């Protein structure tokens, strides 16, 4: 107990010393290096995007730990990132759909952390798209207010640039927010969505676009959306996903796009943990 308290205290001190002063400035965090001198790659300047400031404490308390450098769990996401890069390198995959079988398996947190981990790479920009049209939640997780999201673009109310938010993290942009919509599947399969995905995919070469899509069992959204992306990651929550549901979901999703599973909340007593 004492040890834990001491650790917590140390972490808090580090937070207050490093980036705990509220919104992170792009260059402040050492884990998000700015454009390196001598490199011909420059971080894009999101002049066209809205700017928001994420609340790191809220984000961390929502388990979006990849935004901070203090958590050992980030290593798992680095493993995931490496795996995806290895799979995607040959096939020029850059639109990734993160979904799960049932709600509550941690796909949104996985999507955020994966996006943040990609953004840490020095020559990679990431766009995280909240494709859960019924319940926009990424901006809540990250702790910034947003009034427009994917729906507003799909219903042709606002241009695309107006919905992309730069939350103050280097090479990391987000589309999230707005009012919930009930006929989400129709919007997901609309031509405008196809156009959007195609545009996002081709706009920047070095950009990963990560879509947080509703669970397969929750509705038709995931199945409608699956053909539009390059690859699919299925988040499996330990003790949540039922075997038959998983089998069913795998049958419905296109096999050739399946990148693999992420086993979430896997607390194996005997498992070796890095750094602990």
């Amino acid at each position, binding site marked *: *107990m004492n040890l*834990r308290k001491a650790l*917590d205290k140390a*972490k*808090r001190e580090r937070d207050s010393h490093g980036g705990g002063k509220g919104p992170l400035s792009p260059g402040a965090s050492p884990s998000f290096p700015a454009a390196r001198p001598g490199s011909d790659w420059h971080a894009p300047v999101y002049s066209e995007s809205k700017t928001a400031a994420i609340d790191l404490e809220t984000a*961390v*308390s929502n*388990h979006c*730990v990849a935004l901070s450098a203090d*958590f050992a*769990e980030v290593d*798992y*996401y680095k*493993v*995931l990132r490496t*795996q*995806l890069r290895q799979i995607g390198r040959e096939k020029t995959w850059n639109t990734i759909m993160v979904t799960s079988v049932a709600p509550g398996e*941690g796909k949104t*947190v*996985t999507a955020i952390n994966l996006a943040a981990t990609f953004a840490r790479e020095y020559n990679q920009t990431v766009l995280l798209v909240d494709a859960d049209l019924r319940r926009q939640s990424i901006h809540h997780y990250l702790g910034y207010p947003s009034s427009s999201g994917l729906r507003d673009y799909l219903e042709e109310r606002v241009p695309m640039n107006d919905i992309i938010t730069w939350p103050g993290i280097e090479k990391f942009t987000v589309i999230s927010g707005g009012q919930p919509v009930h006929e989400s599947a129709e919007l997901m399969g609309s031509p405008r969505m196809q156009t959007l995905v195609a545009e996002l995919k081709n706009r920047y070469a070095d950009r990963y676009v990560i879509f947080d899509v509703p669970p397969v069992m929750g509705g038709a959204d995931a199945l409608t959306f699956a053909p539009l992306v390059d690859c699919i*990651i*299925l988040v*499996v929550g*330990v*003790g*949540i*996903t*039922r*075997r*038959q549901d*998983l*089998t069913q979901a*795998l049958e419905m999703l296109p096999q050739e796009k*399946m*990148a*693999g*599973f*992420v*086993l*979430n*909340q*896997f*607390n*194996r*007593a*005997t*498992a070796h*943990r890095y750094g602990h």
Partner: protein
Amino acid sequence: MEDTPLALGDYVDILNRRKWSLIIPSVLVVLVAGLVALLLPSIYKSSATILIEEQDIPADFVMSTVTGYAEQRIQSTQQRIMSTGRLVEIINRFNLYPEYKDRWTTEEIVEKMREDIHLDLISVDTIDRRTGRPTAATIAFTLSYEGKNAATVQRVTDTLVSLFLSENLEVRKRQTTETTEFLKEETDRVRAQLAELEEKITTFKAQHVNALPEMLQVNLQSLNSMETNLQRMDDQIRSLREREGYLETQLASIPKMEDPQKQRLKAAEIELVNLRSKFTDDYPDVKKLHLEIDELKKRMANKPDGGLEQPDNTAYITLAAQLSSTRAEIKSLLQQKTAMMEKAEDYRQRIETTPKIEQTYNALLVDRNNTQAKYEDLLRKAMEANVALGLEKEQKGERFTLIDPARLPEKPFKPNRLAISLIGVVLGIGAGVGFAALREFSDQSIHAPQDLARLSNLPLLVSIPTIMTPSDRRIRNRKRMLVGLVCVLACVAGILAFHFLVMDLDVFWAKLMRRLPPM
């Protein structure tokens, strides 16, 4: 689907995953068992042992009229004691089962009491002397009663035992007396029957005294001898008749009368002739003879001729006498013969009727003999019963002796709190393990990478543990502390509530100590 053997780590995982499924049912069951063990009321049991003593006098000498096995008698006595009326009386006397009085019917309370009374036979294995086979002989039995109050239990057992003993005595006495009386009545009845039969036989005999079967031989002999006699008589008659004929011929040739004057005349004439040859007529003698002859002639002429005169020929008379005696003899013999023949006819009649009579007579005799045998048998039995009655009166027969009176139970006999607690612990662990196993095996969710590998050949990109942020840890710690605090508070509140609402804690403690088995 291949089954990979579970490694130790997998078990640890399962345990970790199902710890609450394991702990909560276990704790609940153990708690319930503990409560049951503590709260079950103490049941005391008091029992008395009664020895079955065989009769003192060997059964070869005196046969008891109380038959049946001791077990049967014990059971029947028990049934009699446990009749509703008696039990209700005992219940009222000792105020038993006050807690059920308001809720249960009398019938149910009596039924409960019947369940609380136990009668156990104590048997030993022996070898039956007659059959040589091993049997179990009941030598004693225990009568016990269970209840919540030690003193009452003892008193009720005492009452039951004394009831049992007196009931048994009464039953034996009644049985013996009844046997004796019954035998006596039966003997009297059979005796009357016998007398009646005897009477009948006597009358019958008197009626058919000559034709009785036992007289047949005599009758036959008599008839036989009579026939012989008759034959002899016939012979006699025949010979007498021959003699009669002979005498008759003889008699015919003999003159009836012998006249002396005629003979004198004849002789005088002859003398005259004789004299005349010598003398003349004038000779005196001749003259005298003449005169005499004349006189005789005159007298003979005067004398009327005919049978008026009695024969005087002696030969004739003798013969006639013989003849008449023979005739008289024949007559008497004929008379005798007639009488004899009548008699023989009578005898023949008797012999003819004998078979007819014999049937009835024999039936009567058989009846008489049977009744006689019955009577003798009954008489013997009645005497034996009388002896047995004496045996019972002297209490020398088989009897029940109280060798171990009901004692005041010091320790409750039920429930075995330790055993219940132990069973509770075992059951609790079983319930926990069972529940956890059920949860584990019925759980269809994915728990390990192997599960994924079995379902699909897609790669597992990464396994991420639950992310614990400092605030998560704080929340978790706070939650644990809160749960602990709530538990402690609940315990305290429960104890206080118990103290104020149910019973004082010191009283409860004392009760608890009393119930716990001494260590």
